[in-house]
């Protein structure tokens, strides 16, 4: 087989030489023949003549011999492909329509497929027996009523705290190994040179459990996870390349996190990212990293330190049995904790798939969105295929005469079919090339917008995507050719009978229903766009309380300029330097465009802090589910941040140490604490002291988390100048400080100059950040903005495809009925009547699509419902109406060209033609 193929290939390659050789061979044969005849006694002239005669037709012999060389089919193929290219060049509009629809269909699908497969299907690379690694899930209820009884449905989390983790490891014969890790974004180095890295803090068994061996050096082992050991680090291959270049420089280098120096002892293999597809730069031993960042209480529930555990089972153990045993151990650990009241005692432990996306919890919105978008792009690919088939069909109809001539000249049914197949494959191949470009661009956009916080290990465009594209090209080329080829084969017979009458019925119901399907899908996508857009608009208009359009925040965290090991072995925190903060404030005020600057201990729209020991006069327990959250502020805070004072007053310069202690509460606090009203004048007891802190004012409640009314948490404010008297408040004041900067214009433009000031004043500041509140808000409503954009793009594409598809079908119908239209004109039908007739056909197809699409959209709503803002319904009549209107308009526009053609049908031409 191989030899034959090689031989054929050689024949094709040396075709010219083979031809010459064949000629020579035949010439030799003739010469021998002539010589033989001369030897037999014939005269040379006669010998030559008889030899020629007996040889027969030289050309035919040559042709027959050539046939055996095996390149005849190839040559035919090249000829057909050449013809296909010429046809495409001549019909630029048609070619562009097909290539664009297909390229968009494939180009959107390839990266989508790649992304979904990494997120949901494949276990991350370099993990030994990934099926044997289980992510540990805790299912618990986090709602408790007044008496502390847990209610509501249980939610699964792949996070746990140290007491639960140690319960998993001890006393469980069914679990072989357990390891944990916490991932953090941590700055390495200081000041402007600091780079933010994705760092994984791992227990000593972690890398062993995954079975991943380093490409260079050694992994982190159990002996490294000990404060007595030298701090070591293992880095990813990507970070090695980015930071060190060669391998020699990497091993032995030091990295600094939270002022601890780690020596790099190993480099993981390329592509390794641990148990998640999200890239990690550095792995550090948990003991060192957590102690440096969390001080002494990270092992206790109070420390609030969560991480994820992974387990391998003992031989023969089942997931269910191991989970049940772990459940008992974790419940026991919880019941003996000091904080057991706030922990669900009926927690259950499950061992799941290594990928979080395949765990037991319902999909998080940011994971649900890629799935839905994936479904949408697949629909677009199907639409594109349907369309290509329709367009080819139209081409066949337009070339009826040409094909009939080909048949008449003796081309076989197979020959004409082959021509059509080759044409579609050539079209599909061209589309594939364009699709690769689309895929590269779209892949990058997709990764940036859909999961902006996800960092991918490899280059954005991988092998699978290219393979997907290739297979799609072949599949689509063949599929798209089948219908027209079958039609062409049938039209052969029909040409003989009656070209225009017989062909009319062919495949029309099928194609019409395909157009209806396209229109229906467009309605679904368009209404999806509208639904997302309405959610987006609603979310955009949420009043967060702050004057967010004009705010910039500069956060300075506790400054560890002078780190020493204290006697207990942990790090001591050095307070923020108040004079340095004042200098920073003064310098920021000087930046052009800054109107005013206030200070607070919490950063607006990024959460808040609680300080223990708050009591409210007359109330035994605090009436809040969460919080209340405290913010120590300067007097101008409310006016700068844009929080309106609703009752009483804000702070003034007169509220200082020694004067009456005052507080301001927000409306949420006031309503929950004193539902009857009259907050001003009430007493709060802050910290350990027994003296009254008088509530002097009520300000509007701000949204520091989330976007819903339910997300408004109670908050109260104290003058920063009155914080020194209480130890807890004083500690909090010196831990974190935020400058709230009111700007004249868009705060985004001031981020760079303010960063410059910060870097100049605090070149050593380990962690700092400057945020514009519009930016923070934009990331909060990203789900809806991305949803709107992606659905919008897909919807636009779908409408475009539907328009092309409708055009193809209507135009095809008009072509088929040209004779009929001509006769109608001859019999006196008005042009406008014919125009209306064809338009009505397009309209009715679109209307059927709208009806089907509306039903489909109502059904498909369940998939997007969890993604919509504040329980908005996906079954939105306005959205559906808009979608229907857009589609019907497009349908009429798409039918207009063929309708005009029909109305101008020339009776004479039609009659002469047949």
């Amino acid at each position, binding site marked *: 087989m191989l030899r034959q193929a090689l*031989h054929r290939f050689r024949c094709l390659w040396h075709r010219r030489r083979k031809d010459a050789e064949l000629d020579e061979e035949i010439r*030799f044969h003739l010469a021998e023949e002539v010589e033989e005849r001369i030897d037999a006694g014939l005269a040379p002239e006669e010998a030559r003549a008889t030899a020629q005669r007996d040889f027969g037709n030289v050309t035919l012999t040559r042709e027959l011999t050539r*046939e055996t060389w095996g390149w005849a089919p190839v040559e035919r193929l090249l000829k057909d492909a050449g013809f296909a290219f010429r046809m495409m060049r001549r019909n630029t509009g048609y070619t562009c329509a097909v290539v664009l629809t297909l390229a968009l269909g494939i180009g959107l699908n390839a990266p989508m497929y790649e992304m979904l497969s990494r997120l949901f299907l494949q276990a991350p690379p370099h993990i030994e027996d990934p099926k044997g690694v289980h992510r540990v899930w805790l299912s618990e209820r986090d709602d408790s009523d007044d008496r502390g009884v847990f209610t509501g449905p249980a939610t699964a989390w792949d996070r746990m705290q140290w007491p639960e983790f140690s319960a998993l490891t001890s006393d469980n014969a069914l679990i072989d190994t357990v390891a944990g890790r916490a991932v953090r974004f941590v700055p390495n180095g200081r000041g402007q040179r600091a780079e933010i890295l994705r760092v994984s803090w791992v227990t000593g068994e972690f890398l062993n459990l995954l079975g991943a061996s380093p490409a260079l050096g050694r992994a982190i082992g159990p002996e490294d996870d000990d404060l007595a050991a030298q701090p070591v680090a293992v880095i990813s291959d990507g970070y090695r390349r980015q930071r060190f270049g060669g391998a020699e420089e990497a091993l032995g280098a030091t990295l600094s996190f939270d002022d601890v120096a780690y020596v790099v002892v190993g480099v993981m293999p390329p592509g390794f990212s641990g148990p998640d597809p999200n890239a990690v730069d550095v792995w550090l031993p948990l003991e060192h990293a957590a102690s440096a960042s969390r001080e002494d209480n990270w092992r206790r529930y109070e420390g609030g330190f969560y991480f994820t555990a992974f387990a391998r089972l003992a031989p023969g153990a089942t997931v269910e049995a191991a989970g049940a045993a772990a459940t008992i151990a974790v419940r026991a650990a919880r019941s003996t904790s000091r904080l057991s009241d706030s922990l669900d005692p009926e927690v259950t432990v499950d061992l799941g798939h290594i990928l979080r996306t395949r765990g037991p919890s319902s999909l998080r919105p940011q994971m649900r969105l890629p799935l839905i978008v994936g479904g949408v792009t697949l629909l677009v690919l199907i639409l594109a295929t349907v369309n290509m088939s329709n367009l080819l069909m139209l081409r066949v109809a337009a070339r009826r005469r040409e094909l009939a001539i080909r048949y008449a000249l003796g081309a076989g049914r197979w020959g004409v079919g082959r021509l059509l197949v080759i044409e579609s494959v050539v079209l599909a191949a061209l589309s594939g090339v364009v699709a690769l470009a689309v895929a590269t661009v779209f892949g990058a956009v997709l990764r940036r917008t859909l999961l902006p916080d996800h960092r991918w290990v490899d280059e954005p465009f991988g092998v699978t995507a290219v393979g997907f594209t290739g297979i799609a090209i072949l599949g689509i080329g063949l599929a798209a050719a089948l219908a027209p080829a079958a039609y062409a084969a049938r039209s052969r017979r029909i040409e003989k009978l009656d070209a225009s009458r017989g062909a009319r019925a062919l495949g029309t119901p099928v194609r019409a229903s395909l157009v209806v399907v396209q229109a229906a899908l467009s309605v679904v996508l368009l209404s999806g766009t509208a639904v997302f857009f309405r959610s987006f608009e609603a979310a955009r208009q949420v009043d967060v309380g702050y004057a967010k359009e004009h705010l910039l925040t500069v956060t300075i965290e506790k400054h560890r300029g002078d780190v020493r090991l204290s006697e207990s072995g942990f790090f001591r925190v050095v307070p923020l330097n108040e004079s340095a903060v004042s200098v920073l404030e003064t310098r920021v005020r000087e930046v052009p465009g800054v109107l005013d600057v206030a200070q607070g201990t919490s950063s607006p729209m990024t959460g808040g802090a609680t300080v223990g020991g708050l009591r409210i006069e007359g109330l035994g327990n605090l009436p809040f589910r969460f919080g209340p959250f405290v913010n120590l502020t300067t007097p101008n805070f409310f006016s700068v941040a844009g929080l309106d004072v609703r009752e009483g007053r804000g702070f003034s310069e007169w509220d200082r140490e020694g004067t009456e202690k005052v507080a301001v509460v927000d409306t949420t606090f006031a309503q929950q604490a004193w539902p009857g009203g009259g907050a001003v004048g009430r007493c709060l007891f802050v910290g350990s002291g027994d003296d009254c802190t008088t509530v002097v004012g009520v300000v509007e409640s701000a949204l520091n988390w989330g976007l819903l009314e339910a997300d408004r948490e109670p908050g109260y404010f104290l003058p920063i100048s009155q914080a020194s008297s209480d130890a807890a408040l004083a500690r909090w004041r010196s831990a974190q400080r935020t400058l709230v900067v009111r700007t004249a214009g868009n705060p985004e433009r001031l981020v760079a100059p303010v960063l410059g000031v910060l870097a100049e004043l605090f070149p050593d500041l380990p962690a700092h950040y400057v945020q514009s509140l519009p930016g923070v808000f934009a990331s909060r409503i990203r789900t809806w903005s991305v949803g709107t954009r992606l659905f919008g793009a897909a919807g636009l594409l779908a409408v475009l495809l539907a328009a092309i598809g409708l055009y193809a079908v209507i135009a095809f119908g008009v072509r088929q009925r040209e004779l009929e239209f001509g006769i109608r004109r001859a019999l006196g039908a008005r042009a406008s009547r014919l125009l209306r007739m064809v338009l009505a056909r397009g309209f009715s197809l679109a209307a059927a699509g709208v009806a089907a699409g509306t039903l489909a959209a109502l059904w498909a709503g369940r998939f997007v419902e969890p993604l919509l803002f504040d329980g908005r319904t996906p079954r939105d009549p306005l959205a559906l109406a808009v979608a229907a209107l857009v589609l019907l308009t497009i349908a009429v526009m798409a039918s207009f060209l063929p309708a005009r053609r029909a109305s101008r049908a020339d009776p004479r031409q039609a009659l002469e033609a047949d």
Partner: protein
Amino acid sequence: MTPASPRNQLLYGTLDLLILRTLVYGPAHGHAIAGHIQRVSEDALRIETGSLYPALHRLEARGWIAAKWKTSDKGKRARYYRLTRTGRRQLAVEQTRWQQLSVAVTRVLRPAD
């Protein structure tokens, strides 16, 4: 495969067998092969050139024979064909098949006992 040419007066497939058999005696060019068959069959079989060269090239494509340009006894360049190892095996197969066929045909032609 190539359809049997109407000019081929031999039973389809027989020509291949004759060519392979002829080449057992050593390499030969097309003219010599045709001449040999004609001579050995005492002029009963005349090979049309319109069949001969397609057959030679087909056998070459299948790898049963190989070709090489050599100078003939008379000093002219000629294309010599020789039997390959697979060709030799194929010859055995074809020969057996031919014998079975001829036995069968003979049986049919023999009057019933």
